[in-house]
């Protein structure tokens, strides 16, 4: 009779172990994102590699943990939009194809050659330009490759979906933040409201 009791306690302990591990990861995630180690572009070695660089990365994806991006320059959407600029002034092509353009440092410098040149963040911008380097912006949104989601901006813009539905109110944000959680439920909900197709292959292919 003692064997089943032992089993039960064993399962309980395993459950605690997993729980603590998950908690540990969540804490670790905060620490890591603070250090700005979010998905850096890595040099490719030219040899076969698995889908994830480490077991840790695989585990993070499995548990749906995503670190907060840390941007190299404290860009402020609020100021630019407040000065009357439009989203599409910089994010060209959002109504034409799957992705919007993130402007290069050259584009920023067309204005900042003369505007606000004494501010520390603009000086950083000028330094990138002087070194011949582009700004290594970190990705904010996006789907895990394993989800096989092919998102295309253009049809959403054509359907009149406001940018803020997915990106939040950019007039209140400095650097872009993940204000909206792009879960499948979020997408399906909107598709149903607007009578858009909810076929699997509409998004997953």
């Amino acid at each position: 009779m003692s064997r089943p009791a032992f089993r039960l306690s064993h399962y309980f302990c395993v459950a605690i172990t997993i729980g603590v591990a998950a908690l540990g990861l969540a804490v670790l995630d905060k620490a890591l994102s603070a250090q700005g180690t979010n998905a850096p572009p890595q040099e490719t070695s030219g040899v076969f590699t698995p889908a994830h660089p480490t077991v840790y990365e695989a585990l993070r994806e499995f548990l749906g943990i995503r670190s907060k991006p840390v941007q190299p320059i404290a860009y402020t959407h609020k100021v630019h939009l407040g000065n009357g600029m439009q989203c599409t002034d910089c994010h060209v092509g959002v109504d034409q194809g799957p992705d919007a353009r993130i402007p290069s440092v050259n584009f920023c410098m067309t204005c900042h050659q003369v505007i606000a040149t004494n501010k520390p963040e603009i000086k950083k911008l000028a330094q990138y330009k002087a070194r011949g380097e582009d700004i290594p912006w970190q990705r904010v949104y996006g789907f895990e490759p394993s989800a096989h989601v092919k998102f295309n901006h253009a049809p959403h813009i054509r359907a009149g979906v406001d940018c803020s539905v997915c990106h939040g109110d950019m007039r209140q944000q400095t650097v872009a933040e993940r204000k909206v959680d792009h879960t499948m439920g979020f997408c399906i909900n909107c598709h149903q409201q607007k009578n858009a197709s909810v076929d699997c292959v509409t998004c997953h292919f």
Partner: protein
Amino acid sequence: MERRDFLKISAVAGATAALEGCGNPDHQLIRFIPEEDLIPGIATWKPSVCTLCPAGCGLLVRVMQGEAEVVRDGRLGLLKMGLAKKLEGNPAHPINQGKLCPRGQAGLQVTYHPDRLKGPLARVGPRGSGQFREVSWDDAIKQLTSQLADLQASNQEGGLALITSPLRGQKRAIFEVFANHFKKSLFVESAFLGDSVIRAANAASFGHALPPTVDLGQSNYVLSFGADFVGTWNSPVAQSIGFGEMRKGRPGQRAKFVQFEQRISHTGASADEWVPVQPGMEGMLALGLAHVIMTEKLRPAAAAGHAGSLIEGWSQGLPDYAPERIATQTGLQAETIARIAREAAAHEPAVAIIGDAATAHTNGYFSALAVNALSALLGSVGKPGGILFSSAPAAKESGVSVEILASQINSGAAAAKVLLLYNANPVFSAPAAWGVRAALDKIPFIASFGSFLDETSALADLILPDHSPLESWHDDAPPSGSARTVMSVAPPAMHPLHNTRSTPDVLLDVAHQVGGALGKALPWKAYDEAIQASFAALYKEKGTKTAKDADEFWTKAQEQGGWWSAEPNPAPVSTGGAPSAAAKATAPQFDGDANEYPFHFLPFASQLFYDGSLAHLPWMQEAPDPLSTVMWGAWVEINPKTARKLSVQQGDLVEVASPHGKLKAPALINPGIAPDALAMPVGQGHENFTRYATGCGANPISILSPLTVEGANSFAWAATRVKLSVVGRGKLILFGGSLTEASPELEHR
């Protein structure tokens, strides 16, 4: 909690802590500022020109924004740029009409090849050691300039040698200025599968030193003597389209196609009637067919005009070529010859073409004249459904071959001081007996412009790598493949990935630095200026696009991928004057004693590697040969009867020996080859040609005898005799099936 469980928890926590170190900033690549502003995810299609074979098909390149790992100013980083993703045929282009062959599709891999030369190199080790050091473009150009300036100052005759792939357009013009400027330069356009025999024969028969444009689409009877016209010969994509039209494009009408050859080719496999013929007897067979047509009064002898008068005994009706008299020599039955002749005469328009091995016997030039005369007799030359010639003027050839260059240098008759090498690999594609390697060793300075190290460019002292074709300007005037006049032009489809420079631009730069008459002969600052200048006169000609001025014309031509005449405008066929002497039939010569070396050795153009210049493309290495399904290697084809006699099994490693060398390759049993012949694809067996081709298979050219086609300055590469022995078990990888599944009655004879 028990102690054991605590340990488990600690272990998991410890493991996670250890993993914390990932995402090392040292591994982060910097991002360079993009040179172009593209909209992500949107593909554009840009015109270009395929340069992988002489057909000159028009391309459309799918270009999309992507990230490339590149080196700029010595720093490794990521660059957002427009990258070529896919190649397709240009639907507007008259040659390939939107189609593209598998070799052309694989052209994409030239640009992204991991072994591409990424910048200029200077030799440091002994010649051929493959040891180079990186140098700057300024240094490289200075070095080449000083060599050429010294040569100019010395005023020495024959001091400059140039070996290039066959060139056309302004690129050829620039090389030609260099060749003409230095006295008695040796300018060689080297190609193993060259068409110089056919061009020489066409010049004699029809007054056009051009390969023919075969109007298969409107033909009703096609006689092909060895030409693999849907595979590799002449303009294969244009001819494949024509072949499709001939077979299925006209409801209720299906032309007949007869192929004469020793080994069934990709094209022969599509023939209605495949007729084996003895090697070197194609000309005799053509005259036998002509004899039947003339004696049965199906066509008058005079119908052949000038082309007929070139053949001895033509006006007498070729009495020596009665089918009964040539049956034994050609290997055909007399009734077969007579029947095919009657069929051809009864189906207008009928056309006869010759190519590949049939023109690579020692009597190949005579065979080509004989087939031309047959075509003329059938009345289809210069007419729809027959042979047409482009109105574009033929380039004037220098008449120097690799063989002549090597023999002159080896004998001391010429003392070349500087060699300019561009996209040619004569060390690989010439028989050992020519002594090409020894000749190159005698040249003190070799500058190569190729994108890869191969057997020849590894001998260079200085390497100035060209852009890949997709990164380059193009201009091209394909001499065959369309009845329209075609002038292709295309700007680069993408920015260069590496520290390379366009070779015509480098040559212009060097010419200006050398100065003097050389600089004055090349007034353009850049290659595209030269192309634009050559297009300036064209805009008044009637083409498919109209423009109000030369500038608009230039823009429209670039958008379309070239200029082509609005209507087909083949050149009129000249009847010419009477020849000084009619050509007399000659028997083919074969090197090697027939008793010691019982087999004819027939190298053939690979469907995948062409002449071997494409063996570095992994898509081509892994693709199965369409006929045999062999992949990753070379093989020797042998008739099943011969194989039984010699106890050769499929896949056995056999040694093929000629008087000039030997090689080993696995045997492939092929019922479609003569019992006294062995065949082998050309293209493998590279000693030094990138990671994908080096040490793969064997090179049949290495054992060929150094014979020449009589009457034409060309290599007789199908005139070697060989012997065969089994040496063990080889590796033959077949994608599926084998050629011996055919029923026994289909076996050769």
